[in-house]
C-alpha cells in the first residue's frame, strides 16, 4: 500500500486485482452459502461445513425432486484465498493511501483480518471431549467426529509408542503401511457405518474371514452412513495384517469403534495393541477428577447444578492446582477451555468439552475495524459535503 510497485509487477498485479474477480468471488460465495445451508438439512452443520466451506473444491450431487444435478464449485478456502489475494493486489495497484480514503483502507484491513481469521480457525481450532472417571486422571482429548486406528507399541516399560492412522486412509482394497510398524494393514472391507451382532445369537453377516480377536464372534452388516448430531457412525473394517519380513499373514481382524476395546497383535517379537477409537489429542498435563457432584432439587430428578472438582498437574511439575468446573465456569489452561458438558455412569463419570481456538479474537477485532472504517469514511464524506455547502 505504501510501497511503490515497479511497473512489470504492476502488470502482473492488475488482472489479479481486477474488480470483476472480486464480484465473481462474491457471487460464488453467495452460491456456497445457499447450497451449504441447504446441505445442512441432509448432512448436519459439521459435515456441510466440511463439504462446502472448509474445502478447496465442492463436488456434490444435488437432489432436486427426482433430478440429480451435479454441482461443481470452488470451495470456501479457494474463494477466501482468491479474495484475499485480490484485495491485497488491489491495494498494490488501484488504491492510494490518502487521508480521504483512510476509512476504506481500515475497512479492508478488517475484511483481510476476517478472512485470515477464518483460515486460522479452520487450521488450528480443535474441539473434543475429555471423559474422566472419579479418582482417575486423563491426559487426552477425544474428537467428536474423527476416528483413528491406533497401533500402540507397549514394549517399552516407560512409554507407549503410538502410530495413529486417520480413518480417511482406509478404503476397501487399500494397503496401509507405516515404517514404524512391522506389518502392513490390508483393508479387505471397510464400512463407514455398520451394525454388529453376536454370531452366538444366531446372527449372520459379513466379515466371515475374521479369525483373530473378538471379531470372530461378531457378524457385521453395512449400514447407511448417518450425519445426525445424536447418532454416530459405527465404522467396521475387516483387515488382514501381513508381517513385513516374512510376508506371512498375522490373521484377519475386525476393527470397529462399536466395541471400545483394544486387541493385541504379536509381531516382530513385540506386542501391539490396536483399536479403532475417537481421534485422540494428548496434552502435556493430566487432569484428575477428584469429585463429580450432581445436585438435584429435593425429591425430583431436575438438576440444580453439576460440577467437577479437578486437579490439574503438568508434566514439568510447575503447575499443580485444583479447580471447580461448573456451568459458565470453565477451566482455562494453555489455550484450551474445559467446559462441563455431560456426565454418566451414575455420576461417577464426568465429560468435559474441550475447545481450543487461538483465533477467536480475530472476528471481534475485524468487525470493530470494519465498523470504525465505515464510520470514518462516512464521516470524511459528511465533512466534505458540509464544507462544500458552507462554501
Amino acid at each position: 500500500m505504501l510501497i511503490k510497485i515497479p511497473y512489470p509487477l504492476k502488470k502482473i498485479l492488475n488482472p489479479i486485482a481486477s474488480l470483476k474477480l472480486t464480484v465473481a468471488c462474491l457471487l460464488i460465495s453467495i452460491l456456497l452459502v445457499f447450497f451449504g445451508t441447504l446441505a445442512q438439512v441432509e448432512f448436519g452443520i459439521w459435515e456441510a461445513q466440511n463439504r462446502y466451506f472448509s474445502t478447496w473444491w465442492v463436488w456434490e450431487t444435488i437432489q432436486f425432486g427426482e433430478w440429480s444435478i451435479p454441482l461443481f464449485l470452488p470451495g470456501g478456502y479457494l474463494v477466501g484465498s482468491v479474495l484475499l489475494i485480490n484485495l491485497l493486489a488491489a491495494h498494490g495497484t488501484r488504491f492510494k493511501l490518502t487521508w480521504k480514503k483512510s476509512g476504506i483502507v481500515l475497512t479492508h484491513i478488517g475484511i483481510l483480518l476476517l478472512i485470515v481469521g477464518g483460515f486460522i480457525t479452520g487450521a488450528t481450532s480443535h474441539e473434543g471431549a475429555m471423559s474422566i472417571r472419579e479418582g482417575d486422571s486423563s491426559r487426552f482429548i477425544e474428537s467428536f467426529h474423527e476416528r483413528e486406528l491406533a497401533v500402540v507399541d507397549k514394549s517399552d516399560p516407560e512409554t507407549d509408542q503410538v502410530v495413529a492412522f486417520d480413518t480417511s486412509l482406509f478404503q476397501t482394497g487399500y494397503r496401509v503401511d507405516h515404517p514404524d510398524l512391522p506389518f502392513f494393514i490390508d483393508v479387505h472391507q471397510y464400512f463407514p457405518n455398520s451394525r454388529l451382532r453376536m454370531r452366538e445369537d444366531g446372527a449372520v453377516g459379513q466379515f466371515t474371514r475374521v479369525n483373530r480377536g473378538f471379531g470372530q464372534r461378531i457378524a457385521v452388516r453395512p449400514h447407511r452412513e448417518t450425519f445426525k448430531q445424536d447418532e454416530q457412525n459405527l465404522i467396521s473394517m475387516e483387515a488382514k495384517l501381513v508381517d513385513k519380513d516374512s510376508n506371512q499373514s498375522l490373521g484377519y481382524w475386525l476393527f470397529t469403534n462399536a466395541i471400545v476395546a483394544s486387541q493385541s497383535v504379536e509381531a516382530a517379537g513385540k506386542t501391539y495393541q490396536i483399536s479403532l477409537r475417537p481421534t485422540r489429542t494428548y496434552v502435556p498435563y493430566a487432569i484428575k477428577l477428584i469429585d463429580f457432584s450432581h445436585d438435584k432439587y429435593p425429591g425430583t430428578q431436575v438438576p440444580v447444578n453439576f460440577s467437577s472438582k479437578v486437579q490439574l498437574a503438568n508434566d514439568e511439575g510447575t503447575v499443580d492446582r485444583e479447580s471447580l468446573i461448573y456451568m459458565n465456569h470453565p477451566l482455562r489452561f494453555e489455550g484450551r477451555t474445559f467446559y462441563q458438558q455431560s456426565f454418566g455412569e451414575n455420576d461417577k463419570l464426568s465429560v468435559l468439552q474441550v475447545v481450543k481456538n487461538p483465533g477467536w479474537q480475530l472476528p471481534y477485532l475485524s468487525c470493530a475495524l470494519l465498523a470504525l472504517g465505515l464510520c470514518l469514511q462516512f464521516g470524511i464524506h459528511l465533512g466534505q459535503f458540509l464544507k462544500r455547502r458552507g462554501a
Partner: protein
Amino acid sequence: MKKKHWLNLLIVLLAGLSSCQKSGVRIYEIPKETEAESPFSVQAPQSESSASPPAPRPVVSSNASEISWTVPEGWKEAALKPMRLASYTSANGQVDISVVKLGGAAGGVASNVNRWRGQVGLEPSSPESIAKAATSFESEGLKGSLFVLYGAENGTLAAIVPYQGMSWFFKATGPSSSLKEEASRFNEWVESLRVP
C-alpha cells in the same frame, strides 16, 4: 490473453495448495497407559484355521463379594450359557433373563447399550443421549442404571451395576409384548439386588 494467463496460473497455484493436506498419520509417545481390555479379547486362537474360538468362561470369584438377588415368582431356572452366572426364562418361556459379570467397565455403558439397541433393531445413540435415557436406581447400597429398549419386535431390559471394579449385567430379552408383561417382575428383581 495475458490476463487469462495469470488467472490460470493463480488457479493452478491454489489448486496445488489444496493438495497440501495432512498426511493422516500421527506418531507420538505417551507415558505408559493401562487400558482395561475388553473381556472379548481374552481369547486368541493360535492357528489360523480354528474358526470357532473357545468361549471365555465367566470369572467366578471365590470370595464373598458377590451380588445376590431374589428370583421373582414365575421365572424358571434355565441352562447356563457361556459367560453367564445365572439364566432364567419367563413363565411363558419367551423371555430370556441373564446375569453376566465382566471386568472393569466392560467396554463402557454406551457401547454395550448400542450393541443391545442394534440387537433389537434400534439405531445407535450417542453416549450423551444414552446417559440421559438411563434410569438410576439404588438397592441396598448398590447403584445401577436401568435401560429400557423396545424395538419393533424384540426388546431388552437391562441393568448395569458397577461393583468392586466389575460390571454386572442383568438383562431380559424377548419379544416386546412378552417383555412388557415381565417388566414389573424385572424391576422387582433388580430392586432385590444386594451384597453380603
